């Protein structure tokens, strides 16, 4: 069986996997990072979105071996051990952008990638971007609000750092 190694949430990890093992299976089952979820089997729902080398990826649509040598960030990597929420996580809490929490990790990871590429998205652009993330609880209204607020907060944080 092939072995893979990658950096996940800042830590070097490696493991032996079947060639057919999906990245999401490697994350959940080998690394026990269960914050990344599986909500479908056709790559539609986006509950499994993580960042691979800085860009959002549906981890159910990538083999673990394809991520060999990559840098991966999962939802667990955002707040880290210091338990300080990322501005996007904070915005979801402030705006009630989550209910059951199952789609939330994918939503947050996807939203951060949007804002990294488009720091001031309009509501229309946010709704358009979320094509690949399904939520059954919120009706998206508060997710859109959360992402807009998260984008503003990320901008503020970036400005403060500069």
């Amino acid at each position, binding site marked *: 069986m092939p072995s893979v190694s990658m950096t996940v949430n800042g830590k070097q990890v490696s493991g032996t996997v079947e060639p057919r093992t999906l990245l999401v299976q490697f994350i959940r089952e080998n690394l026990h990072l269960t914050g990344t*979820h599986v909500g*479908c089997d056709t790559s*539609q729902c986006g509950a499994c979105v993580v960042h691979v080398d800085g860009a959002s990826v549906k981890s159910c649509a990538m083999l673990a071996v394809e991520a060999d040598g990559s840098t991966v960030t999962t939802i*667990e990597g955002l707040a880290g051990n210091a338990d300080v*929420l990322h501005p996007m996580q904070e915005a979801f809490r402030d705006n009630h952008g989550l209910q059951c*929490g199952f789609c939330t990790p994918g939503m947050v990871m996807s939203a951060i990638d949007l804002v990294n590429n488009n720091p001031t998205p309009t509501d229309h652009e946010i709704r358009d971007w979320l094509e690949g993330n399904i939520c*059954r609880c919120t009706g998206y209204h508060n997710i*859109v609000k959360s992402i807009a607020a998260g984008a503003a907060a990320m901008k503020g944080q970036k400005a403060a750092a500069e």
Partner: protein
Amino acid sequence: MSATGIGASVKRKEDFRFLTGRGNYTDDINQPNQTYAYILRSPHAHAKIKGIDTTAAKSAPGVVAVFTGEDMQVGSIPCGWGVNNKDGSPMNEPFHPALAQGKVRHVGDQVAVIIAETYSQAKDAAELIEVDYEELPAVTNSEKAIAPGAPLVHDDAAPNNMCYDWELGDEAEVDAEFKNAAHVVSIDLTNNRLVPNAMEPRAAIGDYNTGTGEYTLYTTSQNPHVIRLLMGAFVLQLPEHKLRVVAPDVGGGFGSKIYHYAEEAIVTWAAGKVRRPIKWTAERSESFLSDAHGRDHISHADLALDADGKFLGLKVYTKANMGAYLSTFSTCVPTYLYATLLAGVYTTPKIYVNVKAIFTNTVPVDAYRGAGRPEATYLLERLVTKAAKQLGMDQVAIRQKNFIPADAFPYQTPVALQYDSGDYEATLKKAMELSKWTEFPKRKAEAASRGKLRGIGISTYVEACGIAPSAVVGSLGARAGLFESANVRVHPTGSVSIYTGSHSHGQGHETTFAQLVSETLGIPLENINIEHGDTNRIAFGMGTYGSRSLAVGGEAIMKALGKVVDKASKIAAHLMEASPEDVEFKDGKFTVAGTDKEVDFGTVALTAYVPHNYPHETLEPGLEENAFYDPMNFTYPGGCHICEVEIDPDTGTTQVVGMTAVDDVGRVINPMIVEGQIHGGLAQGIGQALLEACEYDDNGQLTSGSYMDYCMPRADNLPDFKAATETTLCAHNSLGVKGCGEVGAIGSPPAVINAVLDALHDVGVQDISMPATPQKIWQAIQAAAVLAAAE
């Protein structure tokens, strides 16, 4: 109002763990030495099983065991509600096996379970099982299923595929009203079958402790105690003290996770056989084939009116598709949660309802968000709007003319329910203001200048939730009580744990319930913990569905808190050397009227557990109380939903450009959470009206079995919502609360379709069915044009 008490939009306590990926959903749980199950399902809608050869699968790599229906001889998966036929005879209730017994009855029916060291090995081995099927003709449509000569899903156990033929009201009496009517308006419509699609697929882990003989089931359930009762007492014959059911974090339910499912029994039973833990997690395509579906009614209705548009009588004939087996609540949905709501918000004096529940070769149908009430509302609100058109009346005026007036409560309907409170004029007025109803013609003209058809639709509704008074539902056939339990445990230093039989799977109970405690005991939210979802930790519970958690579960907490305050007051009286009748409790402090004596809640709690100075002669040490609460009546939220759409006549595409909901949900504990619940319901209602179609072909194959075929609402399908509340208090519970979980999905579908038909009125389209997809709308426009040209 305190910052953390009733009425405050407190941020949710549960969000930190969900936002950081530290939730604990069933599939996140792993047990030492765990195995994995794959369920082999029927590829046929209807077939005899002539033989199953599992030899090759059993010797495949990693396989621990393979079981079929022959191995698993257990009780029938029970139905929780018996409904009688018109003639008083009981409904047909065929055996519901966990693993197929000689026959499969829908695509997805469980045939065998393969247990292996890894999930992949179990799935691979399933390919090696040879099932000798003799295919039989199938039937999926309820009307076709009761036609002469239709294939019989349960053979002799349900002749004509009939589960029951039930009625409410006196048909002859209603017919008499029709003889006096100036107008009769009729409608035929379908309430489309839906797939609930909670984002977390169902999962179950069975575990058998070989040392103690105890079984544990971890499951994605809205009601773990109900599962323990149904599976333990009826299917596996395991007593409660040897069976623990845990429903940890659950990723959405919407009804679909109420029911006891075969997979729960399979992993629990099989864990005892292989003496190792077994995990099963559904793939989404399995969810489509095995989660109970919702709705699926075919109805005809006639409304009699006098010359002024006053409703005189209503007759409704509905065929409800039950699917292949009776799921837990399936039988009460089209009867007691549907027919009893057909008075709606109107004073219609005479109503007759006939419901035929019918077996077909499809996935079982059961309660999905709203359950029966969306079907009733859709029928009524389409019919009333049609009546306005037919009589040339204004669609708002015809509603107002027939509203139950605000001073008529309590109001006894002709269909068994007694509404305790409401003000339908108030919610209507506010919704019309918020939606800028009167300025609609300007917006329509502007849209027309862009080549778009713009329409506006309205729906005024009432629903019955907070289920339910046990004596009432018992008399109607419920086989269980529908109370709730709560335990309040005050710890020595004054923090509090609440053990509730309600279950939160997105509703935010850990916050809302904590607000009740904060308000009552005057302690901060961080000193309060809400525990739910574990039969070993919580005394009992009937769970969460039918918007019951606050109105029933919350009331149980309030009752237990009342007992805590009573006992604490006596301890405080002792400490302050006062008489208990003179002690007052407010903002976390006990005081004695007319003195400056004061003792805080924390001191009383400590005294209860360190009883060195304690009234032992009259009180036991400790501060912990239980309560069971059984409601006096259902609760009756109501309101008005207004939808505005724009249709592109060239493509048939509908854009929802406005969605206004003004709902009376009783007292609001956390406005932020209530608004979120309403948003979610609206999205599901719009989804039903415009996007979601669960469809079978004639062979019984589900043709919408994945997210590539079944159109889930995406962010760009939906507008920003305007949601507001307008409150009348529930008259029979202490909090005055009604319930907010389902209103969004109940009120909105007819508002959307009425808007679509309003938009299409000018191009001659009279009718459209849900979901009103672009294809359907485009075809309707073309057909109307052909008809117009021919005339």
